[in-house]
């Protein structure tokens, strides 16, 4: 049984217009996507900014209102309870935020920040709580002396590790990681990603890993969802997407992955130019007349692509 099953999810934002400020139309941020996440699996959700990938993450944790569709957790339809506190879903699904500066309340100590979920769901004594917080900080490589400090005393990477410690405090089954390393220096990105991997093994966590960068995702994800204009253009496992991409949008994203080898620079550029040209040529065949992404078609058990 899948841990999380999202069926035909739609998130629309109203466009107000006219003299009376009525809703005249909708921005279809997410327009009918379905996917499943198995326990312990890492699913990558990749797309350019504005493609709706963060909105999917937000709606799954209840920060964005669903327009349509349903969400099943452990086989149970919990669509109604999303965003409510009294459910196992709230404890089971957590989120890591992209902006490490605004996601920690500047006025509170690390102890209070990390203990916040514990105080909400578990009745612990002060000593137990402190012990638990120290454990959680240790998991993300921070010593117990940090508990009494305030967020502004930490670097970006350390702040994100505090964010991770908060997210895992309730032993969730799934963590939505919304571009968890995009705001960090390249030098600390790998470090934070490693912590995420270690924690995943320790807690048997599933991740919905949201990113705009196929390069980062490659080392994290088992299954990939490529998103464009609020819909999936291609889904598949690592092999399917990286070696056998069918949709021109996916191909373009792959061509855009930076290569660390300087000798490959020219080759890379010609590849990018070729794919870019291909995209322009084949655009009409990959999108319907009004620019909408087609419905997904099954190519194999794992691989789907949105072609007519």
């Amino acid at each position, binding site marked *: 049984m899948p841990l999380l099953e999202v069926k035909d999810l739609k998130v629309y934002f109203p466009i107000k217009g006219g*003299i*009376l*400020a009525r809703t005249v139309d909708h921005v279809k941020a997410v327009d009918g996507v379905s996917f499943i996440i198995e326990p312990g699996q890492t699913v990558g959700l990749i797309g350019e900014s504005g493609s709706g990938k963060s909105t999917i993450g937000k709606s799954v944790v209840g920060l964005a209102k669903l327009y349509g569709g349903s969400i099943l957790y452990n086989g149970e339809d919990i669509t109604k309870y999303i965003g409510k506190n009294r459910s196992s879903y709230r404890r089971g699904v957590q989120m890591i935020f992209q902006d490490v500066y605004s996601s920690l309340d500047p006025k509170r100590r690390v102890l209070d920040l990390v203990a916040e979920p514990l105080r909400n769901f578990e009745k612990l004594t002060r000593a137990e709580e402190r012990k638990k917080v120290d454990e959680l900080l240790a998991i993300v490589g921070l010593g117990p002396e940090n508990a009494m400090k305030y967020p502004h005393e930490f670097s970006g990477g350390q702040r994100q590790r505090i964010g991770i410690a908060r997210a895992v405090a309730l032993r969730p089954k799934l963590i939505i990681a919304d571009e968890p390393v995009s705001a960090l220096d390249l030098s600390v990105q790998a470090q934070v990603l490693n912590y995420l991997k270690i924690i995943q093994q320790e807690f048997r966590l599933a991740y919905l890993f949201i990113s705009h960068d196929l390069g980062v995702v490659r080392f994290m994800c088992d299954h990939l969802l490529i998103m464009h204009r609020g819909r999936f253009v291609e889904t598949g496992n690592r092999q399917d997407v990286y070696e056998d991409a069918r949709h021109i949008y996916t191909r373009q994203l792959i061509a855009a992955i930076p290569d660390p080898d300087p000798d490959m620079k020219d080759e890379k550029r010609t590849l990018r130019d070729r794919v870019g040209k291909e995209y322009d040529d084949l655009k009409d065949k990959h999108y319907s007349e009004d620019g909408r992404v087609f419905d997904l078609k099954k190519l194999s058990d794992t691989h789907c692509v949105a072609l007519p």
Partner: protein
Amino acid sequence: MWKTIVRRILILIPQMFVLSVFLFLLAERMPGDALTGMIDPTTTRPERLEELRHQYGFYDPWHVKYTRWIGNAVRGDFGRSFYHKLPVTRIIADRAANTFWLGLLTVLLIYLIAIPLGITSGRFHDKPPDRAISFYSYFAMATPTIVLALFLIPLFAFRLGWFPFGGSVDPRAFSQGGIHYFLSRLHHMLLPAMTAALVSTAYIIQYLRSEIVDYEQSDFVTTARSKGVPQRQIYSRHIFRNALIPVASFVGYSITGVLSGSVLLETIYSYPGMGELFVSSITLRDYPVANALILLFAVLVVTGTLLSDIILRIVDPRLKIK
């Protein structure tokens, strides 16, 4: 653009409706009724009075009375003054021009004082001229209009005798007419207008100063500097122009401020405007006049705010209504 303005006005309609109901209910609580302004109760038989009350719909349900009241108000009929036994509209009309001219002069003076001082303050920030101007604006913020008036009246009106105290025009000049009349009016308005202007400038001065200081550090000014644009031109072309644009939109707010200040100002200076009329009609329990004035002032305040918003949208294209 037009859509925005039309929408703003459409939003105003329900607001004005609620306001008129509020004022009507307030008026209902006020002693006296429509007959008080027409009939001398001491010479009329009580039965006749009661009869007339029925005839005028005094015992109608409130919504019927409201509809009648607002219908009359829209046509400019606010009933009759209890005290003067005259139509309210006529009494107010006599005073409206006085308040209008005093307000206009005040707004003019505010900008004549605030713009040069604000520019100087920003141009030479943290230097002696700015210190002096900041000192003045702190005092202006801390001094209520009444207090300033109490300082200015004995000095300019009594000791030095430069300005007359009270009234809006000299009776002699009134009969002479023409330029004498105009000058006398101006003479009577200058001291009150100056008082109101001096305490109202602080906000604009501080705004201009901080805008100019901010613009000095902005990227486009740094670019202009590095291109070698002369200092004078940087200020005149790049900084002042940008800083002054939003100030244009303050005109509406200034009008609003000056209007609400007129109640106090005209009373202190015994200047026969609408504000003074309001205070005296409350004192005389002449509620139809007071009520009509509130409605009028509310409409003027709303118009002033609307004007400001519209000007701001016209002069500053960055601001678009959501």
